[in-house]
């Protein structure tokens, strides 16, 4: 190992060669303020354009100030992080950013979570000495994401997320100088672009330039409408993160409190998307076995590997970029949409209500779900299966609006029948979870044996793309896992060129899976938060009495009473979908 010795604020420090000044300083308790810089190990996310110039420090012997995030430690460096020269420069730079930023903190969606606001507070900026014209660029309201580009500070994090992590390539810097802004090409709206609505841009945006489209008011309207029966479903990853919005430590599971809060908010039925996740396993797992058996019997037309289809960002991604492969992914709808379908058929019938009288609200860690529920194929006669999708952050907002002291709530349980779930469905919230859940069921169905150990550790982890082989009693099943669309793209290229050796691949658009979704409480670049959420998810699974989807009694009841069996005609009608070639759909408006 190559070590270098230097001093930072007169304190000696020894670091490995290649360490940046910012990291070296942090290691000795010197927190140099930064803004555009964001690095998430394991997530393939590193944004350090060295553009904001907030982290500048003085290096003796150097003509100008050095950006700490970009400057590597060198032997013998003497670094000063808070000399008068540095403080004056840093304050001036932040004042410049503020001078080109709308002073709308009071009403900004990001207020309280805004990194620019925090920075200005930490530096104690009380006056902006350099005021002038503010740059402006047209805003954009897609079904999922709102872009208020006047608030863009050109940190380029969204660009890194969109291009390097997700390889979607919608967002990049356009225009020059003062007019520079990050936007889709040709002034396109997101809606007309190949945006997948994964929301990773929103997750990393330091200011209010990128936020989710807020549907809380639509929820409130439904709740106060006496003619409507309002049903809510909550995705698995929400309960692992919602607590953070109320100051709780990351990794705290708040399932019971969440249910209690939803009930207090006035939802008529508090259900669980996990139930639908179990249902997804029944359909998708059966489909996997079906394709596998046909393949083993020599059917040349069967498409393998099967690809999971729960993630709407991922679905839109392959519809745009790999439309020629649109018959490869499983036809199973996502859990959100399966839930909507069942709620508005099976459950409405149970209540003896028309589907139009039901309002299905979903609480999701995701922004793409907002878009997914608006897809035409997911509605009947203009009535959407899922009427409104809100994010974890919006749910927190609703709870605060209702004056609920979340942390002191007593745990409550979901309603039945659509609230019962197994451990298999809980792990849908993390990368590797869907495929592990599928394997648990498929193994038992295929072999007729009971699993001795339901934990498939080989499928777990945080690496961007992983592979494992699961032994189905002699049948070796090769499984691939990718999270983050950039990783997915690589696996997909292999499938396309026929090089893939996998039988099944799980793909999640967001790094970490749904726990790292675009609708979750902001992580501000702290990967540990995602890891804690992941741990919480596996804990919940481990604590569940039933851990295999096919053992969910209400699922069994649903099939017995209503659907018949997996892949039945009714299942196909209600629980399966088809995909579109969107390659040419991206248009310049």
């Amino acid at each position, binding site marked *: 190992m190559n070590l270098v010795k230097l001093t930072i604020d007169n304190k000696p420090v020894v670091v490995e060669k290649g360490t940046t000044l910012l990291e070296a300083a942090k290691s000795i308790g010197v927190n140099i303020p930064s803004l555009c810089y964001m690095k998430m190990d394991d997530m393939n996310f590193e944004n350090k*354009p060295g553009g904001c110039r907030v982290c500048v420090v003085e290096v003796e012997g150097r003509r100008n100030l050095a950006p700490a995030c970009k400057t590597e430690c060198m032997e013998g460096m003497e670094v000063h992080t808070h000399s008068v020269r540095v403080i004056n420069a840093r304050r001036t730079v932040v004042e410049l950013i503020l001078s080109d930023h709308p002073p709308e903190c009071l009403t900004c969606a990001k207020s309280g979570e805004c990194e620019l606001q925090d920075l200005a507070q930490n530096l104690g900026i009380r006056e902006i000495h350099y005021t002038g014209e503010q740059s402006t660029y047209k805003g954009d309201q897609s079904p999922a994401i709102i872009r208020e580009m006047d608030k863009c500070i050109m940190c380029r994090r969204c660009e890194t997320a969109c291009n390097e992590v997700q390889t979607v390539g919608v967002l990049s810097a356009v225009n020059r*100088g003062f007019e520079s802004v990050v936007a889709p090409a040709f002034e396109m709206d997101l809606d007309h672009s190949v945006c997948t609505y994964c929301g990773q841009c929103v997750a990393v945006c330091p200011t209010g330039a990128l936020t989710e489209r807020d549907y809380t008011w639509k929820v409130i309207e439904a709740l106060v409408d006496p003619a409507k029966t309002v049903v809510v479903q909550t995705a698995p990853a929400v309960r692992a993160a919602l607590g953070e919005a109320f100051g709780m430590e990351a990794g705290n599971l708040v399932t019971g409190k969440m249910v209690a809060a939803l009930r207090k908010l006035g939802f008529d039925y508090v259900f669980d998307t996990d139930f639908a996740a179990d249902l997804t396993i029944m359909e998708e797992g059966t489909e996997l076995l079906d394709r596998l058996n046909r393949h083993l019997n020599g059917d040349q037309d069967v498409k393998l590997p099967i690809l999971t289809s729960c993630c709407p960002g991922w679905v839109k991604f392959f519809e745009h970029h790999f439309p020629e492969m649109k018959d490869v992914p499983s036809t199973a709808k996502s859990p959100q949409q399966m839930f909507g379908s069942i709620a508005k058929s099976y459950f409405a019938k149970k209540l003896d209500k028309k589907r139009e009288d039901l309002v299905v609200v979903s609480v999701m860690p995701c922004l793409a779900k907002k878009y997914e529920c608006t897809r035409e194929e997911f509605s009947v006669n203009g009535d959407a299966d899922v009427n409104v999708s809100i994010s974890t952050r919006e749910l927190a907002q609703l709870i605060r609006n209702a004056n609920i002291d979340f942390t002191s709530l007593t745990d409550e349980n979901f309603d039945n029948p659509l609230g019962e779930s197994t451990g298999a469905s809980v792990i849908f919230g993390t990368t590797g979870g869907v495929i592990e859940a599928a394997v648990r069921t498929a193994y038992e169905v295929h072999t007729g044996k009971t699993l001795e150990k339901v934990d498939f550790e080989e499928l777990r982890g945080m690496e961007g793309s992983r592979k494992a082989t699961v032994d189905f009693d002699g049948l070796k099943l090769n499984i691939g896992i990718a999270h983050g669309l950039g990783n997915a793209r690589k696996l997909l290229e292999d499938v396309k060129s026929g090089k893939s050796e996998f039988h099944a691949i799980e793909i999640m658009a967001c790094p970490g899976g749904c726990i790292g979704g675009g609708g979750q409480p902001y992580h501000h670049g702290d990967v540990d938060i995602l890891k804690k959420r992941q741990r919480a998810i596996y804990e919940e699974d481990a604590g569940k009495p039933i851990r295999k989807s096919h053992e969910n009694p209400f699922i069994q009841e649903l099939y017995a009473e209503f659907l018949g069996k997996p892949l039945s005609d009714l299942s196909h009608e209600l629980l399966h979908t088809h995909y579109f070639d969107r390659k040419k759909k991206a248009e310049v408006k």
Partner: protein
Amino acid sequence: MAKYKNHILVCGGTGCRASESEAIASNLNASLSENNLQDDVQVVRTGCFGFCEKGPVVKMVPDNTFYVHVAPDDAEDIVLEHVIKGRKVERLLYVDPETKEHVSDSRHMDFYKKQLRIALRNCGFINPENIDEYIARDGYSALGTIMEEMTPEAAINVVKDSGLRGRGGGGFPSGLKWELTRKSEADQKYVVCNADEGDPGAFMDRSILEGDPHSVLEAMAICGYCIGADRGLIYIRAEYPLAIKRLKIAIEQARDYGLLGNDIFGTGFNFDVEIRYGAGAFVCGEETALIHSMEGLRGEPTVKPPFPAQSGYKEKPTNVNNVETFANIPAIFLKGADWFKKIGTEKSPGTKVFALAGKVNNVGLIEVPMGTTLREVIFDIGGGIKGGKKFKAVQTGGPSGGCLTEDHLDLAIDYDGLLASGSMMGSGGMIVMDEDDCMVSVAKFYLDFTVEESCGKCTPCRVGNKRLHEMLDKITLGQGEEGDLTRLRNLANVIKDTALCGLGQTSPNPVLSTMDNFPEEYQSHVKESKCPAGQCRALMQYVINSKLCVGCTLCSRVCPVDAISGEKKLPHVIDSSVCIKCGACIEKCKFGAISIQ
């Protein structure tokens, strides 16, 4: 082959072509044919002669007569009088501005006397579209000699010994750059020629490519041999069509002769060159931004290190030099590092090409040894200030350079001298200003440019320069406040200290240098709302001298906003709150009664 007794060199640079030098050449040919002289006299379209002020320029060989401001219609006279009768066409001769005498031989013109042409050695001399003429001038023999007789290391040492520094502005030792790129290990390396000349008014790179493209190609091949690269890329702005055309012709001809391509000089060395087009962004002259632009990315600079010598185009070691730097290379090898080192100053050997512009008599492209003083350039070569006005300042280094004053006139021009006095070499722009120029407006003018050309990546340049510009605007409008000058200086210093790339770091130079050298001018704008140079329109006051005014009413009738009032035959007055300072009244007044204060 026809044996010509006379050559007529017609400038084919962009400037002279714009004033119909092509038509001059074809008229000359027509007239020669008419007189059956087509086999005696050859008309050659050359590159730029540099004396653009006097263009289109035609030079007669061998008697060296230099005709200026030639029109297509003059072609016949040149043939009939000069060629046939041997009489010089007096009206086309250059008139010395001081002695008022006709000077026929360009070697006797002050404009050329103090020049020494190395980079421009072939410009205005050879036909750039004919490789034979370049070869006749020892073209490609530097490359051949190096490849047959020298190791790459030895050749790099020649460049190092010559002390040649990058002519694009930074002044980084070229030999060292080559050595660093050579030492970087990789399966592929690149030679890049930076032809993204962006300084407003600077056109030396364009002129070299238009007038002597082979010198750049030869130098790139030499560089490729030295650093171990087999591919060269020329990044040139698409708005240089003539340079591009001539480069393309040159590349084709060099390939035909086997001087580019595979197995050059039978040594097994391969090198080829392709052209990449830029869209003319100033920042793409910065080497990392240039490389990103070639990669199809946004033209934005990145923090160095890594330097292109380590990781450049497509993340491979890349040596980037600008056109003028390359143009020096073959001459250095032909004449030796010692020869080169003797020219110029100790730390800045050789010559530098400047685009001399502004309020001087002789505007044009000049090449002088380093160490020449500003006074020699402005007053000897440049012929002094136009209209007999007083010299006020000279701005060197393009938009990011500084303004130097009379006190600096005896400064010997080189990299370090300019830097020490608050300006810089840049790529060689030199703009002369006289007493009528307002230095605040000058600073604002340059900021206009940098604000326009900022890539927007870093805050200090993106927002800071915008704010600087706004403050300067405010000051020129007479709205400057107490404290503005302190803020202006602080902001300028912070931008210099924190901006990401060379463009941003140097963009406040015009502000800082004018504040340093002309503090009283800023003071009077802010404190007295006065522009001493009388250039800031908002600060002008049109006043009627009641003693001179006879009340003829002409002025009040011509005033478009009815700002002038008064009884007939009595002195009039101007209401300055209404006056829009259009100047119409001054033009009309026959009695000189109206003045600007």
